[in-house]
């Protein structure tokens, strides 16, 4: 498709050219972001080196210790824990609304899920801080901990799983249900053996997307996980996620410290990309 044939010397052509230029701007923003973030991170990458970010044992940036490992581990633990809770509950909620809920409950239920989906993370963090953390503290102080983060993150990402799972389940053709019923399979048998496997790709995609959200979330973890840099060594231990770290230290970081924060930002972005690509390209799972 030659450029010149796209933009003939007519009024239409001029307008198309203008629009095309603007579109280049839009698609160029990604490049701009990558360039700037990488540019700010470069001094740290050059002087400290990628390896030390992983091998240093502690994070005392003003003291020349740049170990991201405890915070990486915390971010993983938070996201993984949230997924372990949110994936089954989300899929169950989708199945419930589609196949088990009485007719009068279907719309209000979806409304509540959508409401939860639209709730800002800072509001969920507020609730977590004011309600959940004191409750956990009664069980085992200090309250602001890994488990608090996992619970509220799970609540935050369940709507993502539920909504995508519902779309995937609904797209399974009716003929699958008819065939299953005619063979004497009840609702549960049909769901387990036919419908869920058929919807597998869509559901898995939704779960991975939810995981990416959990990994990239800042406010919830900032407000309720305690923000102490240490390897997560128990559910009730306070931890600090990579995202919280950036939010906390950006205010006063300078020089290499600031650059190292940009490095952690890059690392975070890379992780989220890997998850999102897995979700989007979603390799065609073999029909077993």
């Amino acid at each position, binding site marked *: 498709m030659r450029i010149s044939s796209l933009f003939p010397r007519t009024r239409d052509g001029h307008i198309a050219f203008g629009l095309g230029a603007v579109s280049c701007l839009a698609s160029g923003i990604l490049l701009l972001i990558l360039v700037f973030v990488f540019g700010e991170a470069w001094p740290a990458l050059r002087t400290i080196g990628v390896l030390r970010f992983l091998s240093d044992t502690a994070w005392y940036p003003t003291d020349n210790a740049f170990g991201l490992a405890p915070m990486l581990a915390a971010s993983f633990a938070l996201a993984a824990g949230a997924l372990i809770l949110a994936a089954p509950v989300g899929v169950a909620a989708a199945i419930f609304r589609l196949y088990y809920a009485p007719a009068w409950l279907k719309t209000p239920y979806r409304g509540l899920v959508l409401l939860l989906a639209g709730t800002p993370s800072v509001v969920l963090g507020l609730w977590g801080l004011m309600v959940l953390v004191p409750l956990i503290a009664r069980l085992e102080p200090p309250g602001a901990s890994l488990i608090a983060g996992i619970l509220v993150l799970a609540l935050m990402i369940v709507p993502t799983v539920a909504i995508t799972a519902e779309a995937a389940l609904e797209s399974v053709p009716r003929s699958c249900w008819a*065939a299953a019923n*005619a*063979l*004497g399979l009840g609702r549960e*048998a049909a769901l387990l053996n*036919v419908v869920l496997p058929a919807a597998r790709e869509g559901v898995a995609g939704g779960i991975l997307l939810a995981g990416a959200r959990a990994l990239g979330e800042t406010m919830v973890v900032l407000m309720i996980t305690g923000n102490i840099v240490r390897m997560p060594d128990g559910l009730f231990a306070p931890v600090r996620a990579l995202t919280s770290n950036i939010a906390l230290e950006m205010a006063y970081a300078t020089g290499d410290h600031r650059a190292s924060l940009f490095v952690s930002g890059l690392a975070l972005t890379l992780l989220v990309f890997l998850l999102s690509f897995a979700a989007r390209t979603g390799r065609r799972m073999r*029909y*077993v």
Partner: protein
Amino acid sequence: MTIGPEDEAAGGGGAGYTVGPMLAGPECCTPEPVIRVNGLAVSYAGVPALKHVDLDIYKGCVTALIGPSGCGKSTFLSSLNRLTDLVAGCRVAGRIEVDGVDIHGPDVDVQALRRKVGMIFQKPNPFPLSIHRNLDMPLREHGVRNRDERESRIRTALSDVGLWDEVADRLDEPALSLSGGQQQRLCIARALVLQPSILLMDEPCSALDPLSAETVEDMIAGLRGRYTVVVVTHNLAQARRIANFAAFFWVRDRAGALIEFDTCQRLFEAPAHDLTAAYVTGRSG
């Protein structure tokens, strides 16, 4: 003992029926009813779809349900395996007996009924699983624990539909990779693997290309004697080819009704009802 056209005038009756001189096949069955339908009436959300049907389906024979669209043939079929239970707002009145048992009785397990009375749909609908799992999974669900038993049933069913040679070496491939005709035969095998005694087929060949349709048709004809088959079909020639009995449905009082039921040969060549005569000669419908 078979009855040919020359015996028609003397009146039928005897141990066997055949289709007609064109397709004199083996003796197929004794006229022993395996399904008895009395006063069946079906309505969807108050609108009647089928009114007062009395019909007996004979064991081991192929019964064709013919008639134009919208006269309740598919509804009749769905009521035989209680698939009507799953349609919202559908009410079924009347009595349906399968092997002497009222299928709406309190003690009846619907899942077991559907194992015994299998159904094949117009558009082939294999599950998005492998060929093997399509056949294996219903067996497991119905409690066949023994693996060898399942494997042997699968092999028998695939052979019955003539698919064994074609797919024996690729049982783990997706069922959806088969051609249309193969998929439909797979669906029939999937029903057969549960060892039903009755098969309901809703226009099994109409969504297939002519070559596949012919294969499936031959296969259905080959089920005669071993299975009781009820086939809904729009294709009158097909009915003549494969059926022993034929039931003609028409719309009366804005609901479907059974007009005439007889051996296939008699229905086509000497129908008792004017409507039937008009339909089978192509003058109406």
